[in-house]
């Protein structure tokens, strides 16, 4: 029941959000038409950060409680987070091409986000190279704790290095107009619903795979 509500909320908010952000109510700013991709890029990035944080939480939870369902949740949130992170990099590269002239600028934020992708790709590589479930869960949980450092570095990379990446939530408040903030929050809500439903379905699939393989 809750899952169905989650799907409906996700679909409705993403539809309404993309309708408003792409077609109506959004006059151009001095950046031109290209700023509209920000309404997709920002929720994707936030959703990927939250997924990686959930991966850390579930890894620590597995090490404490030894319930293999936590390991299923950790690996599925790593996969979903990796997918959203790649999409965030692609949308960011498109924005970078039209705003600053090149797809890839070796900007600190871009580089550190690519490193986050590579870290979680190697997390999945580590998982696929170990056969037994308990050892796989233990090793990947420890690796998941190390992998979160890269995410923290990516998040603070705009603050400690000079970067072209715009920071919206600055000390003075939110630097956007009010209508844009509403649509942004709507898209964020939709992306988080999509992210959570993907994680839950992925976790169910892994649990059934484990049960089937144990027989």
């Amino acid at each position, binding site marked *: 029941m809750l899952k169905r509500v989650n799907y409906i909320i996700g679909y409705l908010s993403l539809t309404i959000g993309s309708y408003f952000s792409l077609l109506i109510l959004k006059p151009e700013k001095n950046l031109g038409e290209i700023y509209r991709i920000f309404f997709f890029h920002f929720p994707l990035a936030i959703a990927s950060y939250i997924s990686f944080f959930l991966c850390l939480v579930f890894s620590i939870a597995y*090490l404490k409680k030894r319930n293999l369902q936590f390991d299923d949740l950790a690996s599925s949130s790593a996969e979903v987070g990796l997918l959203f992170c790649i999409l965030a990099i692609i949308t960011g590269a498109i924005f970078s091409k039209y705003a600053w002239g090149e797809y890839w600028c070796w900007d600190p934020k871009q580089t550190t986000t690519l490193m986050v992708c590579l870290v979680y790709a190697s997390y999945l590589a580590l998982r696929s190279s170990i056969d037994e479930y308990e050892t796989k869960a*233990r*090793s990947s949980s420890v*690796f998941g704790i*190390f992998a979160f*450092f890269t995410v923290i570095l990516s998040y603070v990379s705009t603050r400690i290095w000079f970067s072209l990446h715009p920071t919206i939530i600055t000390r003075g408040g939110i630097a956007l107009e009010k209508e844009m903030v509403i649509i942004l929050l709507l898209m964020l809500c939709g992306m988080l619903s999509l992210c959570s439903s993907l994680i839950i379905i992925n976790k169910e699939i892994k649990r059934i795979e484990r049960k089937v393989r144990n027989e």
Partner: protein
Amino acid sequence: MKFLSITKKDLKLELRDRQTFNFMFLFSLITLMLFSYTLSFKELSVISPQLLWFIFLFSAMLSLSKSFLREKEWGTLEGLKLAPIKETSILAGKIIFNLILLYTIQMIIFPLSVIIFNIHIKSLLTPILVLTLGNLGLAIIGSTFSSFTLKSKVKELILPITFLPVSFPFLTISTIALEKSFLGQQITKEILLMAIYIIAVATISLSTFSYLMED
């Protein structure tokens, strides 16, 4: 100081046939010659500190996986686990052993590279400090991740894949620090960041290593 006995045991094993040391030394020498042959003097003067660090990194990466793999192949892993020491002492002993290994390689390769790459060094103390901290970081992460090789299907290949993305922030800071220390500039911020990273990684490794040594 029980972990020192682990270090002494590994040193004794290593001094018997010096295989790992020979391999690391030969590999560093060959890559040193290869880099100095394929790059012109002008390019070398710009990137020589970073190249030097990469040579040490690659030779460490290829041979650090041996610390636990040798234990498993010779069947001494169970003996280690049954010994009356904590598992964190095993890890600490192996970290110190890998540190000594890296130091001995660098003591020979570093003067050679200064001659071959034609690096001008202002002072000798700060590069040694940077190399010490760098070795410590490499040894800690390498020793922890080499315990993944015990149960993995690809055995020693899992170390480079997991090691490089996780140590990416550490690598960037240490290459900047090495370059600045060759020029004689101030490196207090970089030393601080490296120390923070080492403390964080050491805390996590030592506290989660007992989970990796189960079963």
